[in-house]
């Protein structure tokens, strides 16, 4: 490899790490608890990108990384490898989700109705500067409705399929342990749909937004409208040694379908889901899924392009590795430059060394 060994710098390296961590100070359970309580959206984002659902560990990773999201995701992905895989749960199905929010921007009247749920969509975004003057911001409590919303909402896509509005491809039943798994096999192209959707579920929110936004602005081939957006909790249904299936608890999930007019006289749909509540990510991901089918080779909405470039650990790791000593490769570049100049000008000018 074109790196040099780093010798004689142990003390400097140790002190550099201390200097970095000095700014973060002592990390204790109180701080981790405060991070978890105060920043649920960030916790969700980190859990989704780490592909590991455990809010306390995500809060710890954020506290330890001082809020550097890529470091936090790396810590969680690394820690995850210390844990055994105990089981594969039963597949989560949309109509079984304990639904908190469910809207459609394409259809006004959807079976089950539109439920805004927890959102700032129609709220003023004002910075509560009074807080800095010692006056706490206390949100008004929700006035609950007299009746409860249904826990489960019907699938809009299933209704559209029944109406003939979207294609209803025949599906093949796959046993849970036969579902392709990116944590155990490489991502190859053309990707299996299960790999594509798993990769999007683990992908970097910012990267997906960038590429999804590019497609929305016109650098894609389909303009999205949100068919259905859902924030929900999914039951983790596992199997008791005696064969009984039960729920070990709930986890937050988000999912989006986006739609555009397809070529076959039907609507086309794109899909994305992730662990945690993260609307920007799933709308962007569904937009990329929608665009991928007819994407030109090398375009940002081509599957290979967006899946390779939105993997957070690989992308951030590759970016920051350029900080590491590259003296040998760079020396080689300098040698080539000198050689070229020597060949071009026999009288040879001096290149600083």
């Amino acid at each position: 490899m074109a790196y040099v060994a780093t010798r004689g710098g142990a003390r400097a390296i140790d002190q550099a790490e201390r200097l970095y961590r000095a700014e973060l100070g002592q990390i204790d359970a109180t701080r981790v608890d405060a991070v978890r309580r105060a920043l649920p959206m960030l916790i969700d984002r980190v859990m989704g990108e780490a592909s590991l659902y455990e809010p306390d560990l995500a809060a710890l990773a954020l506290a330890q990384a001082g809020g550097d999201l890529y470091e936090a995701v790396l810590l969680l992905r690394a820690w995850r490898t210390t844990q055994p895989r105990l089981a594969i749960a039963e597949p989560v199905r949309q109509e079984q989700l304990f639904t908190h929010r469910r809207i459609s921007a394409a259809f006004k009247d959807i079976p089950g109705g539109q439920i805004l749920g927890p959102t700032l969509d129609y709220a003023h975004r004002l910075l509560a500067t009074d807080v800095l003057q010692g006056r706490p911001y206390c949100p008004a409590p929700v006035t609950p409705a007299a009746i409860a919303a249904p826990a489960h909402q019907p699938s809009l896509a299933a209704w559209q399929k029944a109406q003939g509005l979207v294609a209803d491809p025949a599906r093949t039943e796959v046993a849970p342990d036969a579902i392709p798994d990116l944590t155990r096999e490489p991502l190859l192209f053309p990707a299996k749909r299960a790999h594509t959707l798993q990769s999007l579920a683990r992908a970097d929110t910012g990267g997906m937004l960038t590429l999804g936004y590019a497609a929305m602005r016109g650098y894609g081939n389909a303009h999205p409208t949100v068919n259905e957006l859902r924030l929900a909790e999914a039951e983790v249904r596992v199997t008791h040694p005696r064969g009984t299936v039960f729920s070990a608890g709930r986890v937050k999930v988000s999912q989006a379908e986006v739609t555009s007019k397809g070529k076959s006289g039907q609507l086309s749909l794109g899909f994305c889901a992730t662990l945690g509540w993260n609307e920007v990510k799933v709308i962007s991901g569904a937009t990329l899924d929608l665009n991928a089918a007819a994407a030109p080779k090398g375009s940002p909405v081509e599957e290979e392009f967006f899946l390779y470039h939105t993997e957070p650990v690989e992308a951030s790791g590759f970016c920051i590795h350029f900080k590491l000593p590259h003296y040998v490769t760079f020396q080689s570049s300098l040698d080539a430059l000198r050689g070229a100049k020597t060949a071009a000008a026999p009288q040879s000018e001096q290149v600083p060394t």
Partner: protein
Amino acid sequence: MFDQAKTDDPPLDHGRLLDVLARADAARLMALAETLLSLLGAVEVVQSRTGLVMLPMRDTVQGTDFHLGEVLVAEAHLRATGGEGYGMIVGRDLERAMAMAVVDAAIACLGQTPAISAFLQSEAAAQAAADTECLRAIEATRVDMETF
């Protein structure tokens, strides 16, 4: 309100009671397990660990099952003279998983005794009440887009 559960309610089936135990209040679950442990005699701990459960999801567009991500769980598996007990809960709390396994083992060995049955009914009622409270707040956000 949760003590209104009646012990003459029909016993919960195994799947339902495991749902209730996995979501039960930690302190109350552990208190019940403490009282049941002495009734089980010698108990062998087969497993007590944290680990990962992969959570698949079904894509609504093509019906493809794919892996959404992994969930950290705590697992406990016990063997008593009269039967086995198993607990798995989302999170890292090994004690909660072990308490669930103790109660499951007690049900396997002793059946749903009045104390266990009262606990299950009371916790099921508490969980239903929490869901209802949550869903009433959600219902308050329902909109009619015609008049929005």
